[in-house]
Structure formats: structure tokens, C-alpha cells
């Protein structure tokens, strides 16, 4: 009975993580299309939501097991998974509040690593996996994407420089919608599967499914719906940062950035190199800024990179604390109390965000204008 309650709470938390993953990562695909006005903000998040939902059904070979190659999988328990999810959700919500794009997968890995450290000690962590799958890719992904995008935008501008700007702009607008849609589809395929993997593993661990069972249809539908809903809610604060905070974008640049992101993500998927969608897409936007000689706001990008580097330890600390407290209280009550605490923390961030709201109406305001929540928040913190 207790195990079933814990399982139900893990499933609910996993779907909550999927939701935050959706709204956190809407920016990856749609920030440039919104910034260049290729799509209206609401239409962009709606299109991205539909494509994320479709992506969830596109491939069901759930190989995305939680923290594979990073922790000793035999020692992972339902409570470890729960604590890892809570760590990731709180990190996602906190970074959303500050308008900072960060990897949801890295946050989840961090949360699980933190919980595992408390549960089974440092010998249960494969540190080479932590470096090879999280830390090194966090540094490399934006560099690869930036070089690719800088070359792409240079070529695009060279080919079309003699064309009438109005006509070529319209053509690139159409192409940008296509490339952004491909990134959305890839995101749905990759990220919804991770949550499907978590829920399926929890069901197997609780003996509700056999060890070789495939993903139940209700899990696919629930995960696809959660990520699509999250995407539709739109992480406007992060969309504002990527679309307006890094560099000035027009349609050829937006198209080049999204095409480069799609190319890097598909190639990394094909060769099994773990690169984060968030880091690739942010790197591409910086790359088009460099490729066209536009001003790149390195301070904003530096803050992003700093956030990427502290994602793992930050989510890990929360994961460790949640695991320790849930165990100290004990049983399903411990998990339920921690779930309640997580909801309260998320609600606090939501209430704080209402002071400087960013939504579909003001997401395209110029960086540094009156609705400038990110700089204001950091300055307030510094003060």
C-alpha cells in the first residue's frame, strides 16, 4: 500500500517535471521565431506544443533511462527518483524566474546524483559519467553550435545580399518556421521519452510491470500531454532572454540559428553524443550574432554558462536534502510532505514572478526596456 502511494506520487512528480521541461524549453525552438516576428507569440507556443505532442509519439524506443552511466542503476530506489525529480523541478522553476535557459536533463541528473550520494555514498556515482555526459558537453555544445550558426548565417547573407530585403525576408520567415518546427519535434521526441523512461522504471521497480515490458500507452499519452501543456504555457521569461537578450535577430539570422540547432541536435542524436538542446540553441543564437558582426551581450551569455555549470551541484543539493528529509519523516508521508514543500517553493517563485510579469504581450520588448525582468532581478539580488 505504502509503495503504491509512493509510486503514485513519483508518477505525479514525473509529470510535473515533464510540464516544467516543456515550459522551460519552449524558448529553444520558438524564441527566435517570436523575436523576428515570424510567428505571433501565442501561435508559436501553440505550434511548438502540438509538435512536442507529436514528437512524444514519434519514437517509443525508450532507451533514455534515468542517469544511465552516471549512477549505479541497481541502487536507484523510488525515493531517489522522487528526490531527483524534485531537485530538477525546483532548479527549473528557479532558473525560469531568472529567465535563464538551462538543461532540464542536467538538472534531473544532478538531483538524482545528490539523492544517491545520501542514499548510497560517493561509490555509487560514476564520476567519469558526470564529467563525460554533463560537464564537458555543457562547455562544448554551445561552441559547436555557435561555429555552425556563424558559418550558416554568413553563407545565407552572402547568397541573398543582392535580393530585395522584403521578399527575401518573407522567404526566410517561412523557412524559419520550418526549422523551428523541426527543433520542437526533436525536443518532443527526446524529452518526453525521458519522463516515459522514469515512469516505466518506477512501474517496473514496484512490480506493476514486468522487467521487459514496453511503455504503457497511458504513460505515452500522459507524458506527451504534460510536455505539450508545459510548452503551451510558454516560458516567456526565457523566450525573452534568448530572443532579445543575446543579440539582435532578424529573419535570416533566426533561420540560420534554428537550422544550425536542428543540424547539431540531429547529428548528436545520430552519433549518440549527449548535447543539451538548451545549450545548443543558445550557442546558435550567439553564433549568428558573431557571424553577422552584431553586438553579442556577453554578460548575459556568461550568466547562462555559469548557470549551466552550477546546474548539477545546485539540483544535487536540493535532491540530497529532499531525499534526507523524506527518509527522516519516513514512508509515504515523507514523500507527500516533500511534494507539498516543492509545490510551496514553486508557488513562491510564481508569486515573485508576478512583480515583473513577462507574457505574450511584452515578450518582444527590447532588452533593457521597462519590462526587463532578468537584469532587474540580478541587480536586486546583487544589491
Amino acid at each position, binding site marked *: 500500500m505504502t509503495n503504491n502511494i509512493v509510486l503514485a506520487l513519483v508518477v505525479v512528480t514525473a509529470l510535473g517535471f515533464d510540464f516544467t521541461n516543456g515550459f522551460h524549453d519552449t524558448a529553444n525552438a520558438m524564441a527566435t521565431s517570436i523575436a523576428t516576428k515570424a510567428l505571433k507569440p501565442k501561435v508559436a507556443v501553440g505550434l511548438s506544443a502540438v509538435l512536442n505532442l507529436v514528437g512524444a509519439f514519434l519514437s517509443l524506443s525508450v532507451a533514455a533511462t534515468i542517469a544511465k552511466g552516471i549512477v549505479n542503476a541497481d541502487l536507484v530506489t523510488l525515493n531517489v527518483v522522487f528526490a531527483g525529480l524534485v531537485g530538477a523541478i525546483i532548479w527549473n522553476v528557479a532558473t525560469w524566474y531568472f529567465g535563464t535557459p538551462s538543461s532540464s536533463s542536467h538538472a534531473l541528473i544532478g538531483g538524482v546524483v545528490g539523492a544517491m550520494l545520501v542514499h548510497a555514498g560517493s561509490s555509487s556515482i560514476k564520476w567519469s559519467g558526470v564529467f563525460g555526459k554533463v560537464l564537458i558537453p555543457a562547455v562544448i555544445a554551445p561552441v559547436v553550435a555557435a561555429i555552425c550558426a556563424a558559418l550558416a548565417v554568413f553563407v545565407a547573407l552572402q547568397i*541573398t545580399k543582392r535580393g530585395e530585403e522584403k521578399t527575401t525576408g518573407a522567404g526566410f520567415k517561412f523557412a524559419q518556421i520550418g526549422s523551428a518546427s523541426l527543433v520542437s519535434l526533436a525536443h518532443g521526441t527526446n524529452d518526453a521519452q525521458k519522463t516515459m523512461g522514469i515512469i516505466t522504471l518506477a512501474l517496473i521497480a514496484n512490480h506493476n510491470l514486468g522487467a521487459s515490458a514496453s511503455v504503457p500507452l497511458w504513460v505515452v499519452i500522459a507524458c506527451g500531454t504534460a510536455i505539450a501543456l508545459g510548452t503551451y504555457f510558454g516560458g516567456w521569461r526565457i523566450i525573452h532572454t534568448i530572443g532579445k537578450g543575446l543579440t539582435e535577430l532578424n529573419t535570416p539570422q533566426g533561420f*540560420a540559428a534554428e*537550422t544550425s540547432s536542428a543540424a547539431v541536435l*540531429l*547529428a548528436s*542524436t545520430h552519433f549518440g553524443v549527449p548535447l543539451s538542446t538548451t545549450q545548443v540553441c543558445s550557442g546558435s543564437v550567439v553564433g549568428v550574432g558573431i557571424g553577422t558582426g552584431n553586438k553579442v551581450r556577453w554578460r548575459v551569455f556568461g550568466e547562462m554558462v555559469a548557470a549551466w555549470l552550477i546546474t548539477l551541484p545546485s539540483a544535487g543539493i536540493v535532491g540530497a536534502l529532499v531525499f534526507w528529509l523524506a527518509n527522516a519523516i519516513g514512508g509515504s508521508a515523507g514523500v507527500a510532505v516533500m511534494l507539498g514543500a516543492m509545490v510551496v517553493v514553486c508557488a513562491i517563485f510564481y508569486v515573485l514572478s508576478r512583480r515583473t510579469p513577462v507574457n505574450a504581450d511584452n515578450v518582444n520588448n527590447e532588452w533593457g526596456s521597462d519590462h526587463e525582468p532578468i537584469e532587474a532581478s540580478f541587480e536586486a539580488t546583487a544589491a
Partner: protein
Amino acid sequence: MRSTALLLATAKPLFDWVGLLKVFGISIAFALVTVVLVSCTVRLSAAATSSVGAKRFGALALAIVFAAGVAAIVIYGIVIMMSK
């Protein structure tokens, strides 16, 4: 000394650098091919609207060929996603 060298030679690297190089090369190739095809489509479409007669027809036909190339790349991308 020899055993250390052997250990270094057989140790699993922290990161798949060869895989990364492949990703880097293929990404640049695919992104550039796509960008060239799309840019040519856009440029030719613009040329077609401002031309007449055979020139207009030629520009439009070429634009369609380039657009078909883009569509093929997109379909290949979706196939990669599905076969993962």
C-alpha cells in the same frame, strides 16, 4: 612505466571526442547545405517575381528543385528522430 602506458592506452576516455568531431563535421555540412538550398530558393523566388517569360519560368523551376532538396533533408531529419 610500460603498465602505465598500457593503462592509458586502454582506459575509456571521459568523453567521446571522435563522436564529437563527427557531430561537428556533419552538423556544419548539413547546416550549410540546408542554408544554401533555402537561400537559393528564396533568392530564385524573389528573382521569379520580378522577371517575365522564360527567365521567370527558369527561376521558378530551379526554386522548386532547391525546395525539394530542403524537403528531402527535413524528411531525413525526421527519419533520424524516428529511428533513434
